[in-house]
């Protein structure tokens, strides 16, 4: 499975068998760095090397890449913690206790999936009946709406599981406020009430998170029904870290996870999660758990198709992993994600509308001069 001498799969080798780095040539390290840049995993790989006491194998001329990425990560951690304090402070007067999701949840629980992971938005969950109050008080406390037009407004308010993102004017950070884990009109329907029953405190004072099973399922739903492919390998490593950590801490984790997935109606997602985590990152999933979820898998004729799509999109988005079918696979999964997200009678007008908006924006962009980059 792991081709020991082939440096084109350096990042996977490192995540699966970190100690192999002692056999690496400088070219392996060079490939690793290139793949880390492509997948935004430099700081996480640095953490894996550190945890396994392997940093002395890094060639000296390349060590700065890791050290620098780690500095950026430390700054990110600091910023997220400060942002969480701002959000908690703003919501305290009306007694709303936001539940932190995804990246922010990994940080407040200090779990392995937080290490070296840089993300752009903070996601929180607030019960639907409190969401108006939550939005209002944030708007009074220094956040502003970011919705572009009436269509966007309708899209979020009527169909989605979150309200239009808010932006903290002082820090520029984006806040996504969810009242469910999947869109209201989605084919995957989750009863938000069952989430609330298992909310638990985070390690950071005054923070709350979903239960470990729900955190895992939420991240899996996001990755395996979503449409952001350039970060999918990073998100797959999140799932791998979570499965390993949670199952080590709780002997009953696997049973709880499987029954929770069935309760939520996301058995298929968990099946894919098990399949690709174990096949791509060698996540140790017990055979009994695999067998228990097998019935939720796709039809045997569909499976090879899904395999070929997911192998292409879940592997690192780097030239050493991409083949000619990468773009087509992304497109197919993009269509699938929309198919799952909304019924056809909403989906078709929505895609047409989006295409029109993109065309118009292109035209406007040509009229104005678009900045090359903020920094230059």
């Amino acid at each position, binding site marked *: 499975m792991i081709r020991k001498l082939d440096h084109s799969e350096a990042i996977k080798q490192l995540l699966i068998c970190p100690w192999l780095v002692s056999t690496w040539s*400088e*070219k392996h*390290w*060079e490939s690793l*760095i*290139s*793949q880390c*840049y*492509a997948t935004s995993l430099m700081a996480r790989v640095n953490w894996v090397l550190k945890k396994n006491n392997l940093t002395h194998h890094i*060639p000296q*001329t*390349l060590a*700065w*890449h890791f*050290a*620098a*990425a780690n*500095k*950026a990560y*430390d*700054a990110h951690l*600091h910023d997220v913690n400060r942002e969480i304090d701002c959000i908690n402070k703003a919501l305290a007067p009306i007694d709303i206790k936001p539940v932190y999701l995804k990246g922010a949840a990994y940080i407040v629980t200090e779990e392995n999936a937080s290490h070296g992971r840089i993300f752009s938005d903070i996601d929180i969950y607030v019960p639907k009946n409190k969401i108006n109050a939550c939005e209002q008080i944030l708007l009074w406390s220094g956040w502003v709406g970011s919705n572009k037009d009436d269509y966007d407004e309708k899209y979020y308010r009527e169909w989605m599981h979150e309200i239009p993102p808010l932006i903290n004017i002082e820090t520029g950070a984006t806040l996504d406020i969810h009242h469910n884990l999947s869109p209201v009109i989605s084919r995957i329907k989750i009863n938000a009430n069952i989430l609330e029953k298992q909310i638990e405190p985070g390690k950071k004072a005054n923070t709350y998170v979903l239960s470990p099973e729900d955190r895992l399922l939420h991240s899996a739903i996001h990755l395996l029904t979503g449409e952001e492919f*350039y970060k999918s390998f990073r998100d797959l490593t999140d799932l791998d870290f979570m499965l390993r950590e949670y199952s080590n801490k709780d002997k009953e984790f696997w049973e709880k996870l499987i029954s929770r997935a069935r309760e939520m109606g996301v058995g298929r997602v968990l099946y894919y999660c098990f399949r690709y985590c174990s096949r791509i990152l060698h996540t140790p999933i017990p055979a009994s758990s695999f067998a228990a979820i097998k019935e939720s898998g796709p039809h045997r004729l569909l499976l090879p198709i899904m395999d070929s799509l997911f192998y292409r999109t879940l592997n690192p*988005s*780097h*030239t050493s992993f*991409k083949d000619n079918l990468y773009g087509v696979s992304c497109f197919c999964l993009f269509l699938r994600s929309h198919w799952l997200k909304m019924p056809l009678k909403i989906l078709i007008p929505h895609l047409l509308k989006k295409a029109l908006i993109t065309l118009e924006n292109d035209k406007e*962009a040509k009229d104005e*001069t*678009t*900045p*090359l*980059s903020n*920094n*230059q």
Partner: protein
Amino acid sequence: MLRKSKKINFRAGRFNINLTTCVSSVLKGIDLLYPHSKISQKEIIDFHINIKPVPGIRHYIKPQVEFVFNSIIPFHPLPIDQAFPLLEWGLNWCVSTHCHQFLIIHAAILEKNGSAIVMPGLPGSGKSTLCAALSLRGWRIFSDELTLIDTTTGLAYPNPRPVSLKNQSIDIIKSFEKNVVFSETVHDTLKGSVAHMLPNKQSTNFYYEQSSEIKSVIFPKYDREATNNEVNPISKGSTFLKLAENSFNYEVLGKEGFTTLSKVLDNAKCYEMHYDGCLEKGIELVESTL
């Protein structure tokens, strides 16, 4: 304009680059402005870059190129005649977004006899023109855009690359000194007309690990109507704030950024310089601060 895709390894300043491109103006630009910078296939690469045509129907009407960094495309595509400037801007981006071993300030930096001067400046302040002129009068170019300060020692490190000149500055420098190698001027970029100048030999022959202490920080202010060419001391406090504001990664470095800037300003003198565009006088004023 296009040929078969080619891979070249070369040294851009202090970093090793692996470039894949089929755009002939990029290959020509590298031959011209990075002479003797080719490195062997065995050398370890820092940044893998691709300058490639944007595919699609548009390619046959108005061809565009994009800058790809390890599968990431950080900028909008640009018309194909801007391919070489795009490479230069992309290389700046590689440094300014990743190299947190340094405090990175948007400023020109030059060195002579172990002393370095830093010239931050807004567009139009004349910093690039002055930087090019100083380099033609014996100063070594550390960088015309990105001052790299080591966060542990507070010393500046060289990253010499072609000097980017804009609009009138191109002709001003061409008439200031004959026999200077320039890339072809590219018009109608986001920054107007742009040309790149080959840095002098002593800049690129310089040993890359040789650091230098920053002796003065000068904020040049070009004003054609200026009646006095003068250089006046300014406070370290206001200089500190301006440098922090002009830094790409002060916020990433946090406390480390603060201590690094403090180390620099403990030893450096700070000035504001008004000049009317006369380069000889400008050079004299800069040198008078040492």
